[in-house]
């Protein structure tokens, strides 16, 4: 009996093996004939208007009238908010959530990128004076009126004192001086900057906080203030002004907001917005988990990257979601080369002197640039959902220099440049003019699939030229330490978030004394002027760009900086992923824009048939 069973098992096994081995050659049909609608272009009717009803200055949304009620569940990647104190946010999640709860005087028009009034009713600019008139009759969530005192308090006692996150204070300083602020009446204030300063207006988007709620804490000093409004604060006691107020925070799981009945925005029927009853952010650890949650219908929107796009695109016609193409991403992905030629405290050079000669040579950098196969990167690593990038400004920046067209992958140009720089190829190995073998390290942060794959490709591309590249993925925080503190690296693949509206935000990267001037980082309080010629020019550009006020004047200045970077190539840009977002069909009033994405108008979004 047992024997029979064994024989039977062997026979079955052999059968399976044979079945696997014997395969008939039949032409396969892999063509896909699903017709999907084109990516939609939906245009927002016209900009919001100010409307005064019964002495209250409302802001009227021009979006189609929707239904009240329902809840929207979206996700935030990472560990969730660290604080709800809008003045003390240092990470994107905290600031976007605090931003929901507290409005600034102005905001950015999500379509055009221009500055438009929000909590302010209007703004009058006379050279260096900014007269701001507040809305009459609008209230905090505890029904106390929002007045000029709150604005005075926010700026005088928080921003100008550098409480919380002082970056706004830094950004408002002109030649080290802060603007002056005076109260003209209960609903009018006036800022005066020491001289014309373009980035100032955008800084007025700083959230205005309720004096009566914040003052008791700020009076007790900075450390008390910074620890105020941590996520575990009782939501009932929080006083805020934004479209949504906090309802519940559950650590590492979710943040729930509910509509603020006191909000000052109304729809075309003069009904108070927002439409949504509840807005839920689920805190998810990584994109993979986010996808699973979307699949399981636990969340309503999902941003897609790489090959996931195709997967969702194919299923789109029979699904309950729509896919929007938001164009290139704001972030940039690049290869940075270390031009540092300084020595550390022990007089040891940060970078090996022979490498300094290579990296300091523009032709060498150009050779690297031309040897990088961006086309394949886009195809393989981003699954085609990206665009090659050559400029320091991201592709959706309003300051993008459109004259920089980039160049294809061309190994001949590379070889010419290397020859010009005195490098010689012998038996497939590249030597410099002194006979040193060209060998260096390439770093990136470990655990990031995309960057590791990029590193492998760049290594291959450069090794084609006879260089030896030691590709070393290291832990993220260690890499940053190398870039900003110890300077002992050769090349690195990194990414930064850009600001498509204000190139001046990149000053820490581009000015020679900036704290993120990675490619030639100087120590803090460094007072020797060893700037390269083009570094000097960049310094001048950023100083000049800041004081010019209108776009037309500033554009050529910032065009110039992109040209310099493109020519000098201290940072070689790789590609820009295209942002694709899927969102459930039941969610209406979606007006996707390349600048702001999909869910910027949470107060106008409503759910059709979604109420329970």
């Amino acid at each position: 009996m047992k024997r029979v069973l064994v024989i039977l098992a062997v026979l079955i096994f052999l059968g399976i093996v044979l079945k696997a081995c014997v395969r008939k050659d039949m032409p396969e049909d892999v063509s896909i004939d699903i017709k999907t609608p084109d990516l939609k272009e939906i245009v927002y009717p016209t900009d919001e208007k100010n409307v005064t009803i019964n002495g209250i200055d409302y802001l009227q949304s021009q979006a189609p009238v929707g239904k009240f009620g329902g809840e929207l569940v979206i996700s935030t990647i990472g560990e969730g908010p660290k604080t709800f104190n809008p003045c003390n946010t240092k990470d994107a999640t905290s600031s976007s959530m605090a931003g929901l709860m507290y409005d600034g005087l102005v905001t950015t028009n999500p379509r055009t990128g221009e500055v438009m009034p929000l909590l302010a009713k209007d703004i009058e600019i006379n050279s260096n004076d900014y007269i701001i008139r507040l809305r009459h009759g609008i209230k905090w969530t505890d029904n106390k009126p929002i007045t000029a005192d709150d604005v005075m308090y926010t700026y005088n006692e928080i921003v100008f004192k550098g409480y919380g996150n002082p970056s706004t204070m830094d950004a408002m300083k002109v030649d080290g001086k802060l603007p002056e602020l005076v109260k003209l009446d209960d609903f009018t204030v006036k800022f005066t900057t020491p001289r014309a300063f373009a980035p100032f207006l955008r800084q007025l988007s700083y959230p205005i906080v309720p004096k009566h709620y914040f003052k008791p804490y700020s009076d007790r000093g900075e450390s008390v203030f910074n620890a105020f409004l941590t996520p575990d604060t009782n939501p009932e006691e929080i006083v805020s002004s934004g479209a949504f107020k906090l309802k519940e925070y559950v650590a590492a799981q979710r943040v729930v907001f509910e509509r603020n009945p006191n909000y000052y925005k109304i729809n075309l029927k003069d009904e108070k917005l927002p439409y949504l009853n509840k807005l839920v952010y689920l805190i998810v650890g990584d994109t993979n988990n986010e996808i699973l949650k979307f699949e399981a219908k636990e969340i309503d929107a999902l941003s897609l990257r790489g090959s996931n796009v195709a997967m969702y695109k194919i299923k789109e016609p029979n699904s309950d979601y729509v896919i929007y193409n938001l164009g290139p991403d704001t972030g940039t992905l690049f290869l940075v080369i270390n031009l540092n030629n300084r020595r550390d405290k022990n007089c040891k050079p940060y970078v090996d002197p022979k490498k300094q000669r290579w990296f300091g040579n523009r032709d060498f950098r150009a050779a690297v640039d031309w040897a990088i196969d961006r086309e394949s990167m886009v195809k393989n690593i981003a699954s085609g959902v990206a665009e090659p990038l050559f400029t320091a400004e991201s592709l959706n920046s309003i300051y993008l220099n459109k004259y920089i067209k980039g160049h294809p992958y061309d190994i001949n140009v590379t070889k010419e440049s290397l020859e010009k720089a005195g490098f010689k190829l012998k038996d497939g190995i590249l030597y410099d003019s002194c006979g040193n073998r060209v060998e260096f390290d390439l770093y990136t942060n470990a655990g990031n699939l995309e960057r590791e794959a990029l590193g492998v490709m760049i290594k291959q591309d450069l090794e084609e030229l006879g260089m030896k590249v030691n590709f070393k993925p290291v832990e993220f925080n260690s890499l940053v330490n190398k870039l900003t503190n110890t300077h002992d690296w050769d090349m690195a693949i990194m990414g930064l978030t850009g600001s498509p509206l204000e190139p001046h935000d990149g000053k820490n990267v581009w000015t020679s004394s900036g704290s993120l001037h990675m490619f030639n980082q100087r120590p803090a309080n460094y007072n020797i002027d060893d700037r390269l010629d083009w570094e000097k020019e960049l310094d001048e550009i950023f100083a000049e760009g800041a004081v010019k006020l209108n776009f037309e004047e500033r554009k050529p200045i910032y065009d110039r900086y992109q040209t310099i970077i493109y020519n000098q190539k201290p940072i070689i840009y790789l590609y820009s992923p295209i942002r694709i977002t899927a969102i459930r069909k039941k969610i209406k009033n979606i007006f996707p824009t390349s600048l702001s994405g999909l869910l910027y108008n949470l107060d106008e979004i409503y759910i059709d048939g979604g109420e329970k």
Partner: protein
Amino acid sequence: MLKYITKRILQVIPLLIIVSLISFFIIRLSPVDPLAELRLNPSISQETLDKEIKRLNLDKPIYIQYISWAKSFIKGDLGYTSAGEKVSVKLKERIPNTLLLTAIVIFMTWIVGIPLGILAAINKETAFDRMLTVISSIGMAIPSFFFAILLLIFAVKTGWFPVGGLTSYNFNEMSLIGKIIDISKHLVLPVIVLFTISLSGLQRQMRANMLEVLDSDYIKFARAKGLSESKVIFKHALRNAINPMITLLGFEFAGLLSGAALTEYVFQYPGLGRLILEAVMKSDINLVMASLMMGTIMLVLGNLIADILLMIADPRIRGAK
């Protein structure tokens, strides 16, 4: 007995000191920069960075950092995370969740593992015994994170279980029964993963203990006395075989705390394991130190409780001490 407990608690102090020294110095000697995220943010100025460095004491020599940490730890002040949240608050949020998960897993492994161990010992070297060994080995052989991911996909495909987390977003509006059902639904998958990992160890241990006891003279004597086999096993053998298992409880707890990290991470479970994992990756020293201390204290407490249980269960030990 009271004296014994006091002695044991006093013994914990040097242990804590060594643990804190080891972990503190290893973390601080690493080139990991706790401010990396801030540094990479183009809009954060040098002044902000300097302020943060001051606040986190990063500008002082490492031994001074340790002393100042130790001082405040003794005072019961766990300090702030690098993001400025209170460490004590963060721990308080997470510890109950972890305790819930580990308690369920330990309970499940015991209730399944002990009987299986006994059965395997009684049927030593039969096909049943071998099958049990193989099955439990299979459970042990899958990388936990991988198993967790596969289960998540299973959850998505079937829609039977929620994808990660501990509670649904509308948890607060549920009735009490609804809440219990909601939490249990979320717990099923992580419990399955941790249960599979820790079951086989317990089962094998119980089997070995039982075999040894069954081989001992007094069992032989009991059998010789003509007691029925079930009486021999349940009345005499079981009690003695279980005693050494109690000592394992403490270690099992520590093991789960560490083994749960990746599982919690994949399931987005709001537990201590995931918190430590994230803190370690960012070199968030106060958070790591506090959680490691908590882990150590829990381990020691677990052992202590196990010892006391043992003393109550086994009078011979009481006499020996």
